[in-house]
């Protein structure tokens, strides 16, 4: 009892305070569990369970004496568990895929609930509150239950973090490690149902899924570490709970559940764009940078090849020659040379109409040409490609080959001197072209 008294102290007196606390608890619990849901690719399981509890809620409302909340909760949880069980059974005994199995359970259970409710309209007046959620109606007793539930959830997840994590990535592997996969699965779906039912009263059927998925997906884009993902996902859940709670308390007519969902979506959208590694902008930036580098390196290679065809007798290469080699305009060649100049690979000579390679430029150009020719040789010798089929492939891979791969290639090909077309393979370490 001492233990529960601590929770009593934490419960705020005002209605708005209660709503915000409920939103925070919800965000924390759903965020925590959501990480597993997102990783296991059962994101819509929460959706299916939240719809499948309906017959349980109806049964609880009709049959429990005085509509005892605990009984309703229990019936709802049982219906949800049954739904989750049927999804697993459908998937393991038929050819139906997970999406169809989830859809079948979601829709049939829900329809059954609605049918039952329509028979007993008087007895089930509170069904709407359950379906659409009403965070304002949450009282101190509900809050206490949510607190206990959230604490319990956190404890179970942190105790079982490792086996649950392994199972989320690879069920077979966790079986091989000796984890009791069936029991763990049971615990997982039990926890999921439990938190869905707890959250249901606050945000309603549809938005439970949002609380499970959106914060966890945002966290997934920010980190590669599972522990961090759990914490971030909880933090995002709590953050959206607070934002949603505060907005709906201060703006008239704003329903709490949807506002919390929208807050979570805004957080996700922000992460979607600006996440450092997996964000869309970062990816775009990386692509642009890579394209620029490839273009730069191709120009360097063109300069080398022009030099090579002249027998390395002239130092200068004119912009017109580069433009012709790259099949482009002179303006374009000038632009590319300006970028090379910035990186110190070339220097302008004379009147600015021709360029020559610096030492660094020579090295990089030779590396590119070597990579290209090594790869062509590798494809013809080791992979039995025809020698007129290898250029395209080498054209792509020359920019990616790392130092170790190059060493390995040279070793495997017995330190070759000529490529399949009879052209010499340069050796950048000597810093002079093979002439």
């Amino acid at each position: 009892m001492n233990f529960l008294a601590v929770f009593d102290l934490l419960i705020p007196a005002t209605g708005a305070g209660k709503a915000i606390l409920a939103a925070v608890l919800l965000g924390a619990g759903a965020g925590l569990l959501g990480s597993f849901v997102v990783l296991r690719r059962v994101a819509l399981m929460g959706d299916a369970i939240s719809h499948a509890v309906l017959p349980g809620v109806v049964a609880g409302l009709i049959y429990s004496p005085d509509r005892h909340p605990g009984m309703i909760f229990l019936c709802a949880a049982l219906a949800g568990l049954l739904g989750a069980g049927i999804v697993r059974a459908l998937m393991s005994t038929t050819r139906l895929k997970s999406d169809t199995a989830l859809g079948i359970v979601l829709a049939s259970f829900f329809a059954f609930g609605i049918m039952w409710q329509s028979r007993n309209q008087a007895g089930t007046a509170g069904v709407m509150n359950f379906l659409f959620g009403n965070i304002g109606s949450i009282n101190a007793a509900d809050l206490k239950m949510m607190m206990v539930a959230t604490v319990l959830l956190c404890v179970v997840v942190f105790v079982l973090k490792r086996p649950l994590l392994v199972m989320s990535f690879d069920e077979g592997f966790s079986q091989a490690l000796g984890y009791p996969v069936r029991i763990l699965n049971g615990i997982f779906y039990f926890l999921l149902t439990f938190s869905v039912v707890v959250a249901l009263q606050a945000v309603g059927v549809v938005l439970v899924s949002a609380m499970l998925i959106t914060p966890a997906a945002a966290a997934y884009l920010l980190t590669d570490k599972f522990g961090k993902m759990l914490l971030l996902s909880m933090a995002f859940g709590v953050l959206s709970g607070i934002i949603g709670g505060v907005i709906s308390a201060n703006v008239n007519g704003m329903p709490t559940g949807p506002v919390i969902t929208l807050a979570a979506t805004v957080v996700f959208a922000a992460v979607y764009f600006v996440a450092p590694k997996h964000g869309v902008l970062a990816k775009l930036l990386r692509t642009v940078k890579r394209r620029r580098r490839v273009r730069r390196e191709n120009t360097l290679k063109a300069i080398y090849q022009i030099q090579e065809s002249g027998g390395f007798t002239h130092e200068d290469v004119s912009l017109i020659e580069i433009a012709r080699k790259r099949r482009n305009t002179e303006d374009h060649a000038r632009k590319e040379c300006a970028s090379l100049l910035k990186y110190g690979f070339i220097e302008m000579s004379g009147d600015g109409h021709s360029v020559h390679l610096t030492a660094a430029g020579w090295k990089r150009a030779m590396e590119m040409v070597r990579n290209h020719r090594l790869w062509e040789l590798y494809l013809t010798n080791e992979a039995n490609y025809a020698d007129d089929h290898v250029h395209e492939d080498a054209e792509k891979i020359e920019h990616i080959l790392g130092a170790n791969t190059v060493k390995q290639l040279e070793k495997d090909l017995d330190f070759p001197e000529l490529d399949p077309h009879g052209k010499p393979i340069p050796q950048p370490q000597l810093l002079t072209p093979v002439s």
Partner: protein
Amino acid sequence: MNYLTIPWENLGFGAFWLMLMAFLVALPCSQMGSFLILRRMSLTGDAISHSVFPGVVIAFVFTGDLASPWLIIGAGLAGLASTVFIELIHKKTRVKQDAATGISFTALFALGVVLMETMLGKNVDLDLDCVLHGRLGLLLEEQHREIFGLMVPQPILIMAGVALLTIFLMMLFYRVLLLSAFDQGLAASYGYKPAVIHYCTMFAVSFIVVAAFQAVGAILVIALLILPGAAAYLCTHRLKIMLLLASIHALLSAVGGLYLHVWFNTDMASAVVVSGGVLLILAWLLGPVDGLMWKWLKDEEETPDKDASHSACSE
């Protein structure tokens, strides 16, 4: 025998209209849903039926008329928007398709609720009850129109149009749908653009969902999309037979729904779905391809054999 005639005694010709309407709603859903199942996109029906909501609300705000065709257009656009969001999330990041679906439709649904609460105020005509139950139960009280001397409830005419259009379009594009359902790469190599097929399919699904939505409510639409196709899938390996079986499933659930509705005095739309669910359970147990019953029987027959082969191996 009394049980079989009750609906006809109670409702007269109305029973026929109810059944026909339920069938007309379930038929296009069953055909489209079969392809969704094959494409592993069953839950896009779920996503779309929720995401059309803001489109409906916005169209309603501008027109102020619940019967306006703009509502369907708005809903279709919102459905397409959710498809675009799903693609943007799961193609551009490592978030998987299921999570992307969950994020998109909950966000759009929440947006719809917020718009409804803030822009429509308290005198809302878009009641939540309609979202749950649909208006199928009110069919006989709707406006009737005279066709060939017969008084036909107006929604039936609209739904018949939708069903005919759907079936016509599906026959027209059967080959494309078939190819893209089984092998997107092959379809692309024949010159059918996967993106175009995808968005056209999604637009068609939004259209059907919106048309069916008014009759049976948002969530039961999902059932009509998935149950017939899934039950048919358990019974056959051939697409044409699957489509045929799905339409038979739609017909049987309409009939079954009518009887459940009258026997137990329940809501008609959910009764149709429940009888569809019962049919699915039958297919699960007795289906010629995936039936559990046959698998159990086979196991029992094979068990002695297995033992024999085991002992043979160990010797």
